[in-house]
Structure formats: C-alpha cells, structure tokens
C-alpha cells in the first residue's frame, strides 16, 4: 500500500523532473536514444527499488523484537504461490527489458546506438542515406582522424557535418584504446588489427569531448581532444583547409586501409 502510493508519486517525478537531466544529452540521434532508454530503465528500476526499501523499512519498524528476551517467530518455511508469483513477475520484467533493449538496438533509425559494432555492423543506417566515412586511429596517446573520401587526409582534429550519418572506423596502432565522443553517445574500442564501426548522426552544431575509455598506459587520462559538429558548408570549408594544410604529409602516409599493422613495440 505504502509502496503503491510512493511509486505513484516518485515515478512521475523520475520521468519528468529527474528524467531530463539524465545524461547523455540530445546532441545526436544516438545519444537521445540512449537518453530515452536510460529514462525508461530508471522509471522501471524506481518501483523495484521502492518496493524493497519500503518492505525492508516496514519490516525493520514492525517485525522487531519487543523487550530483551529472545522469542522465536512463526516457523514459515516458504510459500509456493508467493515464490511462483515472484518468479513470474521478475521473469516478465527481465524478458520485457531484454526485448525492449534488443528492439531498440536493432532499430535502423538508431543505427546501433553509437556503439562499436565491429568490422561487419549488424545495424546500418537506412539505405539511400549518404554516410561519411571517418577513420579514427588511436595510438599512445593521441587520436588522429583520416577522411578516405577526401584523399585520405590525416589530421589530429575531428569535425563532422551535422544532420548526416557518419561512420567512425575505429582502429589502433599499438594497444587497446576506446574512442568515446561523450556528447554524441559514441563509444567504440580501438583494438589493433580490428576495424570497429560506429554510426552517429549529429543533430546540431556544437563541440564535443573525445576521451579514451580503455586503459592504454601512462597518459591514458590525458588522451582527450575536442571534436566539432559543423554545418555542411562549414565542414566542406574545414576539410578543404585540412587537405591544404596536410598536403605535404598526405603522400607519405601509408595507403588508406581499414587496419594497420606497425611492428609491435614489445617494451615501453
């Protein structure tokens, strides 16, 4: 009873008051998808949390020993009906969550929710859409970015156009890193010898943080940079400038490839 009242009060609070503040933000299709699912999970977790808290609070308040002497409680050994109901309820919750999560993940409009999907992605952007390919190369302790459709130019800066699907091809030259574009809701491990594809569609012009989310050695905590979402025209101008700035370097780069195999550095 207390639980029903508490749930009726708290769940709407969670959805409409706390909900909008739950990260990540609405900077991209992917991050707003993650935001929605986080709000759904929170509003489902809240009644469970409240049920246990209310029950334990009630039990502690009511089922305490009166006086000093030790009295035994009633010898209840179990109740098949209660156990079955409990199992049924938890099973329904779990199956529902798994179904919801799977449907959400496989939805092509979300295109994999920004997570790294490996070399052959399961979920791709809807066909017919233009997808900009950007290679993200992690190495100790720096991110560089290659644009194969712009002459394979490699730059230490990242910019992507807004309202267009971008495919990040994340790979590494040395150890495992993880490419985390926080505001965009993109995370994909950079693993040497693997081409890890993550899709994103940014919704507005903005800057975003890029961090390394997998321990990669000494300066792991400093492997950050800032990326930019630009307008289509702004991106065209930016990439032209990059091509110009790095025109002396680009011919000496190894030919564009999904993975690179530099000789291993066995000892730092």
């Amino acid at each position: 009873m207390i639980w029903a009242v508490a749930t009726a009060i708290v769940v709407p609070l969670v959805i409409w008051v706390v909900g909008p503040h739950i990260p990540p933000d609405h900077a991209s299709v992917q991050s707003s998808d993650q935001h929605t699912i986080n709000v759904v999970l929170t509003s489902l977790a809240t009644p469970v949390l409240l049920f246990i808290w209310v029950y334990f609070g009630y039990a502690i308040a009511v089922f305490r020993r009166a006086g000093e002497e030790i009295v035994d409680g009633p010898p209840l050994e179990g109740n098949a009906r209660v156990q079955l109901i409990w199992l049924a309820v938890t099973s329904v919750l779990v199956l529902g969550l798994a179904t919801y999560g799977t449907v959400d993940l496989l939805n092509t409009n979300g295109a994999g929710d920004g997570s790294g999907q490996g070399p052959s992605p399961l979920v791709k952007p809807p066909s017919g859409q233009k997808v900009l390919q950007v290679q993200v190369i992690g190495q100790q302790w720096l991110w560089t970015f290659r644009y194969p459709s712009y002459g394979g130019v490699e730059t230490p800066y990242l910019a992507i156009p807004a309202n267009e699907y971008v495919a990040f091809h994340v790979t590494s030259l040395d150890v495992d890193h993880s490419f985390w574009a926080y505001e965009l809701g993109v995370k994909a491990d950079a693993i040497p010898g693997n081409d890890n594809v993550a899709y994103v569609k940014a919704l507005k012009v903005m800057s975003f943080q890029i961090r390394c989310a997998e321990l990669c050695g000494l300066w792991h905590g400093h492997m950050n940079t800032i990326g930019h979402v630009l307008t289509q025209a702004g991106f065209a101008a930016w990439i032209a400038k990059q091509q110009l700035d790095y025109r002396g370097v680009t011919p000496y780069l190894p030919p564009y490839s999904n993975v690179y195999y530099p000789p291993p550095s066995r000892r730092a």
Partner: protein
Amino acid sequence: MEAASIPTAVTAPPSTWRRQLLGFNVVLAVLLAVGGYALFHVIGAAIGKKALFMTETDQDDIATFFGLIGATLGWLLGLGFFNYPVSRILGRPASLREGEEYGAWRYFRLCTDHKVVAIQYFVAVIFFFFIAGLNAMFIRGELASDNSTFIQSGNYLTLVSLHGTMMLMMMSAGVLGPLGNYLVPLMIGSRRMAFPRVESLTLWLTVLAGFVLLGAIFLGGFPTGWTGYAPLSDQARAGMDCYIVSFSLIGIALVLVGLNIITTVMTLRAPGMTWNRLPIFVWGLVTTSILAVLAAPVLAAALYMAALDRTVTSSFFVPSAGGSPFLWDNLFWFFGHPEVYILALPGFGIVLEILPVFARKPLWGYRVAVAGMFGVALLSFMVWQHHLFVSGMNANLRPFYMFTTELISIPTGIIFLIGIGTLWRARMRFSVPMLFSLSFFFNFLIGGLTGVYLSDVPSNTTSHGSYFVMAHFHYTIMGGLVFALMGGIYYWLPKMTGFKLNETLGKIHFWTMFVFFNLTFFPLFAAGLLGMPRRVTSYDPSLHNLNVFVSVAAFCLGASMLVLLVNLVWSLWLRREPAESNPWQSKSLEWQLPTPVPAYNFERIPVINSAPYGYGVPDAPPVADFGPPLVRPGPVAAPEGGAA
C-alpha cells in the same frame, strides 16, 4: 600413530623455542624463497642471454619468471610441502611432524588443522585487504583534483592496478579461505577438510601471491589494471611478470580450494546431514567452488600465453604477427565474469545464514535459495561478452549476451525474495552481524539495478568503461561481499578466536562504513554518466567538486575500516573477554560446540536430526545428537595409554 597422538595434543610441546625456529616454517620459507629467486634468476638470465629472440627486448623477462618460479619452489620447500611426498617416494613412514598440533608456532608453518589454517587465512586476507585499501586512499588523493600531480602517472597506474588485482585476489579467497575452511567441517559435522595438506597449500600460495604482487612495485610496477589487457601487457615492464605469476598462483589456489570444499561436502557430511539439511552458507561455498574449479584454469591458461608472449616473443595477442587481443579479452572474461560471482555467492551465503538467526525464523524458501545460487552459477558462464559490448566483437552476438545478462537478475532476485520471506513476521534483533546483513540488501539492490543499465547495449554505450561501471561493481563487491564478510566476521569471529568483539565499536564501524560507503560510491554513478572514464589521472574540470566530495567521503570510509582494526586489536588482544559458546542462540551445528572449538571438533561424529533453521518450531528436536560424552582419560585410565 595417529590415535596415540591425540592425547598428547592436550599437553605442552616438548620442544624449545630454538627448535621451533629451525624447523620447516615461514622463516625458512622466506629465506629459501629469496635464495630461490636469486638462484633461478641467474639461471634464467643465462638462458635468456643465449637465446637470440631475447635481443628484441630490453629486459630480461625470462630471468624474472625463472626467479619467481624459484621463489615459489623455495617458499613451498621451506614450509615443508615436499616432506610428505618425498618421504613417501623414499619409502619412509610419513606422518605429521611431531608437535604439529599445538603451540603458537603452528600458525607460522604448514598446519593441517582446518581451524588454524582459517585463522592464518583471516590474518593474511585482512593484511592484504588493508594494503589494497591504502592504495585506494592514494588513488582518491590523486583524484581530489582534476589535474593534480600528487602522484606520477606511472605510479598512479601501478596503484590502480595493485588495488584492483589485490582486492580481487584477496576477496576471492576472502570467504572461501577464512570462513570456508573454518566453518565447512563444523557445519557438516566433520573433523577436518578432505585434503588438509592441500588446504594449507592454498593458504601459503595465497600469501605468496600477495607478496609477489607487491614485488611488482620493485620491478617498475604494471600499468594494466586487474584486467591485464594485451597488448598493453606486452609493452609493460617487468612488474607485469609479477602480476602474471601471482595471479597464476591465486588461480591454482582457487582450483585447489574449490576442489577441497566440494570433496569435503560430498564425502565428509555427518550421518543425517542430508543435502536438504545443508546450511545455506555451505551451499553458497559449494556453488562458489564449482565456479572456481571451472573458471580459474582458463585464467591460468591465458596467463601462460601472456607469459610466453613476454618471454619467448610468441604472438598470441600481437595482431601484426597473427595474434589477436580479442583472444586475451575473451579468455580473461571467461574467467573474469564467473570470478565476479565467486565474489558474490559467498556473500549471499553469509547473509542468508545470518538472517534466520536474528530474525528468529527458519530460512524462508530454502530450496528456491539453493536453486537461485545454482542459477547464478550456471548463468555466470554465459554472459562474459557483455564486458566487450563496444569492443568490436561480432555484433550479432550482442542481443544474446544482453538477454543472458538480464536473465541472471532472476536468480539474483530470488535472494531478495528469500530475505523478504525470512523477515516476514520476524522477531528481529539488530546486532552488528544483522546490521551488516540488512545493509547488504540495500547496497546489492543498487548494484544489481545499475547492472541492468550496463547489460542494456544502448545504455551501456555511454556507461561502458566509465565511473558508472566502477561504482556498479563497487556496489556489488564492496557493498555486497565486503559488507557480508564484515557481518560474517562479527558473527563468527567470537567462535573462531574465543573472544568477544566489542559491540559498540562494531556499531560505530557499521554506521560509519555504511554511510560513507554510499556517500563515496553513489556520486560516482553520476561521474560516469557525466563522462569520466575509469583509471584516469585527470578529468573534466566540471567534475572537480563531485570528485572532491567523493575523495573526502572515501577517506572517511578508510577511517571507518580503521575502527574495525581498533576493534580487532582491542577485543582480541588487549581486552580478551572470553566468548560464550553460543552468544547468538543459533541452532546451527557450529554453535553447539564449546568455544574455543576442541582440536578434533567433535568427540563423536554427531547424528544430525534436522535442518539448522528450526526457529519457532514447536517441540523441535536438538539439531544434532552428539552422543554421550566420552570418558576422559582420568587417573584410572592413564595406565592404558589414554584411549580416546
């Protein structure tokens, strides 16, 4: 031989202090371990210099590995683990060393009394627990500012790695070792574990593993965290070899301790101790042991590959030479995820064992609880790739692992149902063990519910590898296992040591630990969702205030652990108030024995009449029939040699 030695166990040892010092004990073990390290290091260096493939590296990892193997052999030789097999091979009669069963020195050598081994385990685990906790204090010190240089980056990573690895290693032994070895024989009505020498071996391997891991500090540390991801581990300096060897030793110890517990429970139960009268704590340890036996060998194999990569420059994990980092990731997490439940299941066992005693009610839904534990154990082998959701693994597998991971919350939910049922219409007492048990449900609920976020692939994309994960597993491992372990310590330590623990200090310890634990780790969920990756020295300045708050709370949490230390020193050393034999009025078998527990536990093997949870059952028979007391060898019986 055996029979005649029982009466002498009561009398004082005939040997002198000096004779004790010169035997096979930890002093000799340390000497031989150091000597073994030096000798084998020289041999390894000689081999390494002859081998051409070593020119590729600038450090002598072969020598380090040889040294650590030599240290292990010397350590075991010094403790006398080879005495028995060697004397059997030579055809000599093999017996326990004379003077084995008495005196303070038995705590410093191979001892086959499960109660002594348990105390040794307890001291070792607490010692390493505090060292690893101290590392955590340094970590929080560094993180109190968003870009501080309080600790150099390299040292910081070593601290993080030592904290993680040591906590994981010691906490997986934390319940199996002290409480498991002490209580399993007492709870099932046995006089010993099935393999007493193996039991002692696991203890001394665990101790050695802890010191070998600390040895990494002197060899340049290691930067990989407890996960030891390749190829970062290939790059690392010689401290990595310490990680590999010490984790292997723990792996071996886990397999052996698991086999020992499974065998003991299967073969040494007293008459009448049927499977459905087995205390739930023993079920918790049996399921844990099954996990340990099946998972730890995979870890040992993976570590062996890592060792080969580092020494003879094989390429299991080096992609440019045909290997794959995914091989390590999968092998490691195939061990690593069951390992998480090796840490959780004993906690379930402790809490469900303590709850009925203080609720004064039978354990509600005993069979469902056992089924839940087996469900957790079984499912834990099918979820490991959720650690690799964004790694670029085969994307088709992710819905499957999302499903199995969420499935595991059904058997975990059962544990909550058992708690709910047991507390229904209870007559609760709020002694310290009960407080810790109740807080287990509070913490583990938060840990479990946040696990649902992590199991969901879209939500996981942001939280993966962030402080959200870190807060989640601290809520399950510290909020779950460590709180349960603390409850277990306050509950069983009076039986194990024979002295009362101070109740007031216990309550202070509980409340400070509970409050500051939540103040430390709850904000870290937010830090993770706001974009703070794990294992960093610097973070976004906007998270500065949050981290300062967490650091202060973490220092208070550390201080609360000192209250435990003060309580242990005060109660067990300074004050020494003898404990009653059954202070909690429990019906479980171990509490029916006198405190301190006699050397051979039971004069006669008891006959078990009922499950240990018969609270409130009218006309309940005594839980076990201990038989008529034996006639002590008095003055009349003495001429016959004191028949036992």
